[in-house]
C-alpha cells in the first residue's frame, strides 16, 4: 500500500515556544517579509502557533494550537486551482507546484485553515541570511502561492536512501523540521497506512480530534486535546 503521511499534535504538550515556526523557516526558505508587510497581514509562516485565551482574568489560561497545512484528503484548495498547481500526490500530500502557479489565490480563499501563503513581492534575504538558504528547497517568486509540504524534500531523500539500501522506511527514521525540533515532543509524524507506526497508533486514540473536521476536509493532521478548551469540561479521553 502506498504511504500516507500524517501527523499528530498533542495540544496538551505544546508550550507555544514557536521553535517549530523557526525550524520551518530555516528548512523551507520561508521569506521574512519585514515589519511593514507583516503589518499588512502578509507575514509568512508555514506553521504558526495560534494563541487563544480561555476564561477571564485572573483565571485566564493560555491555549496554543500549532496550525500547519492539514494535507487534507478532500482538500478544497485542489479542485479550485485552474492550472493543477495545487494537486494531490499518491502519498496523500497536497502538493503545490510553484512553477505552475499563476496566482489566482483561489486555493487560499478556499482553504478553511488559511495556511496558504502568497508571495506579494519577490522575496529578499538580507545579507548574510541569503547564505543560509536550504539548497534542497526552491525559493518562490512573486505571484506564487506556497505552503507547508510536510518537508517533502526530507521525505524524498529518505525514500531514495531506503530504496538505495533496498530496505523499507523505518518509522521515525526522518521527521519534518517542526517535528524534529519540538522540545516537548508535542508532534509525531509518520505513515498512517503503516498500522504499526506511532502516528497511526496515536491517530486511533479516543483523544484524537480534527481541526474543522466537520467541514469534511478529512485532514491528515490530528490534534490531541485531553481537556476541552471550554472551561470546566473534561474530555472523555
Amino acid at each position, binding site marked *: 500500500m502506498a504511504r500516507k503521511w500524517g501527523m499528530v499534535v498533542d495540544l496538551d504538550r505544546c508550550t507555544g515556544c514557536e521553535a517549530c515556526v523557526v525550524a520551518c523557516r530555516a528548512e523551507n526558505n520561508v521569506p521574512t517579509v519585514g515589519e511593514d*508587510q507583516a503589518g*499588512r*497581514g*502578509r*507575514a509568512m509562516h508555514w506553521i*504558526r502557533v*495560534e*494563541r*487563544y485565551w480561555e476564561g477571564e482574568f485572573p483565571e485566564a489560561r493560555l491555549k496554543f494550537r500549532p*496550525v500547519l497545512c492539514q494535507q487534507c484528503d478532500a482538500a*478544497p484548495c485542489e*479542485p*479550485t*486551482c*485552474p*492550472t*493543477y498547481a495545487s494537486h494531490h500526490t499518491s502519498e496523500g500530500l497536497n502538493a503545490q507546484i510553484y512553477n*505552475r*502557479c*499563476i*496566482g*489566482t*489565490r*483561489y486555493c*487560499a*480563499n*478556499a482553504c*478553511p*485553515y*488559511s495556511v*496558504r*501563503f*502568497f*508571495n*506579494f*513581492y*519577490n522575496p529578499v534575504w538580507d545579507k548574510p541570511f541569503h547564505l543560509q538558504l536550504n539548497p534542497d528547497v526552491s525559493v518562490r517568486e*512573486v*505571484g*506564487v*502561492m506556497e505552503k507547508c509540504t510536510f518537508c517533502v524534500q526530507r521525505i524524498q531523500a529518505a525514500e531514495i536512501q531506503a530504496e538505495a539500501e533496498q530496505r523499507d522506511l523505518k518509522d521515525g527514521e526522518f521527521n519534518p523540521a517542526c517535528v524534529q525540533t519540538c522540545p516537548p515532543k508535542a508532534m509525531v509524524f509518520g505513515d498512517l497506512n503503516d498500522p504499526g507506526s506511532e502516528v497511526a497508533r496515536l491517530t486511533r486514540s479516543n483523544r484524537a480530534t480534527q481541526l*474543522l473536521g466537520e*467541514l469534511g*476536509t478529512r485532514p491528515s493532521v490530528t490534534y490531541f486535546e485531553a481537556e476541552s478548551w471550554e472551561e470546566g469540561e473534561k474530555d472523555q479521553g
Partner: protein
Amino acid sequence: MSEKTIAQVNEDLLRPVLRTTRRFWIAVLLLGSVVAAGIGAFGYQVWNGIGVWGINRPVFWAFDITNFVFWIGISHAGTLISAILRIADAGWRRPVTRCAEVITLFALMIGGIFPIIHLGRPWLFFWMIPYPSERQIWPQFRSPLAWDFFAIGTYLTGSFIFLAYPMIPDFALVRDKVTGWRKKLYTVLALGWRGTPRQWHRLEKAMHIMAIVIIPVAVSVHTIVSWDFAMAPVPMWHSTIFGPYFVAGAIFSGIAGLIIAMAFLRKVLSLEDYLLPVHFDNLGKLLLTMCLVWVYFIFSERLTVWYGNESAEMAVFWTTQRGPFAPLFWTMVFCNFIIPFPLLAIKRFRTTITGVVIASWTVVIGMWLERYLIIVPSLSHKYLPYTYGSYRPTWVEVTILVASNAAMGLLYILFSKFVPIVSIWELKVGSHKPPVVHHRLSVVRDSSPTGASAIDDGLLTTDQ
C-alpha cells in the same frame, strides 16, 4: 409625438457618425487619459508585484473580483434584456436594443480583463486556456475559474454576433450615404448587404435563433460567476442561493447601467425624439421588478443564515449587519432599495427621466457594494478567529476601478462614433405597424430591393 420622415431619421441618427464635434475630442481625451492611468497602474503592479494592492492574507480577493463580478453583472443589461424584448416582440424596444447590446459587449470585455490582471503572474494567464501544450497539461476542468473562461468566452462571442448581425443593414445605409475613407470602411463592414428579400429573411432568422440561444448563455454566465464563490467552503459563500441571486443582481445592475447610458446618449447625441420618456418608464418598471426580486433574495439569504445560527457564518453575518462592514451594508440597502424603490414605484417619479436615472445611479453603486460585501467580509472572517483580517484598498486598485469606468465611457463614445447607436432599419420597420412579424418584414421585401435604405417614403412615427 413628433412624426418624422425617413430623411429626418437618417439625418438625426447618422449625425453622430458623420459629424465630429469638439466635445467628442475632449471626452475622448479625458476618458483616454484616465484609461491610460489605469494601464499605468497595472504596469506599476506588474513591475513591483501584486503587493502594491491592498490584498493580504486572508483577504486574497477584494476590488479585483468585485470589479469582475460588477462588470459581468452590468453586461447583463444588453443581450439578455434585448433578447427578452425581441422574443416578447415589445415594440418599444427598437431604439433601445443596440445601446443595450453594446453595453454587454464592452462590459464583458472590461470584466473579463479583471481575472487576468488580478493574477499574481498575469503574463501566464493563458494557462487557464485549454490548448495543446507540449507538456500535455490541461487546465483543471473542476475549477470554477476554468468554467469562467468558457462561460465568458461563449457569452462574449454570442453577444458579439447578436450585436453585429443587426448592424449590417445600418452599415450598408452609411455606406450608401458617405464618400472617401468612410465609404471604404463601411463597404467592408456592410459585408455586401444589398437588402434583397433573401438577405432580410436570413437576418430575421439569425436574429430569432440568437435571441433564443443567448438567454440561457446569459443566465449560465452569471451563475458560473456565482459558483466562483459558492463552490468554496467559505462562510456565507457556500450557498445554493448564489446562482439565481447573482443572475437577479446582474440583471438589476444591468438595467440600471442601460438607463444611465441611454440618458447620456439622449443628452449628448440629441436623441430626444428617439429615446422617449416611455422608454425610461418601461425600463423603470423592469428595474422596479428586479429591485423587488433582489430584496427578496437578500432577505432569504440573510434570514436562513441568521436562523441557521452556524458560528462561522454568524461571524460574517454580524460583521456586515452591525460590525465594521455595517456602514457599507446599510449604504447598499439604501442604494438598492430604500432610494430606488419609491422613485420607481411612484408613477410621478418614474415617468420623469430624472427620477429613473437617479434610481439607476444608486442601484449601480449599491450593486458594486453588494459584490464587495459578498467577497471581503467572508474572506476576512473565515473559520479560525486567529486568522481574521481586514482590508483597505490602495491607490492602485482605486485607479484601476476608475479606469475601468472610463474605459466603458470611452468605448461607448467611440462606438457611437462609428455605428448609429439607434438601429435605424429596425426603427423604420417598426414604424409600419404591421399585424405580425412576418408581414412586417414582407413590407421590406416588397420595397425596392437594391438599396439598404429600402423604405424610403412615407411618414415615420416614433411614438409608441
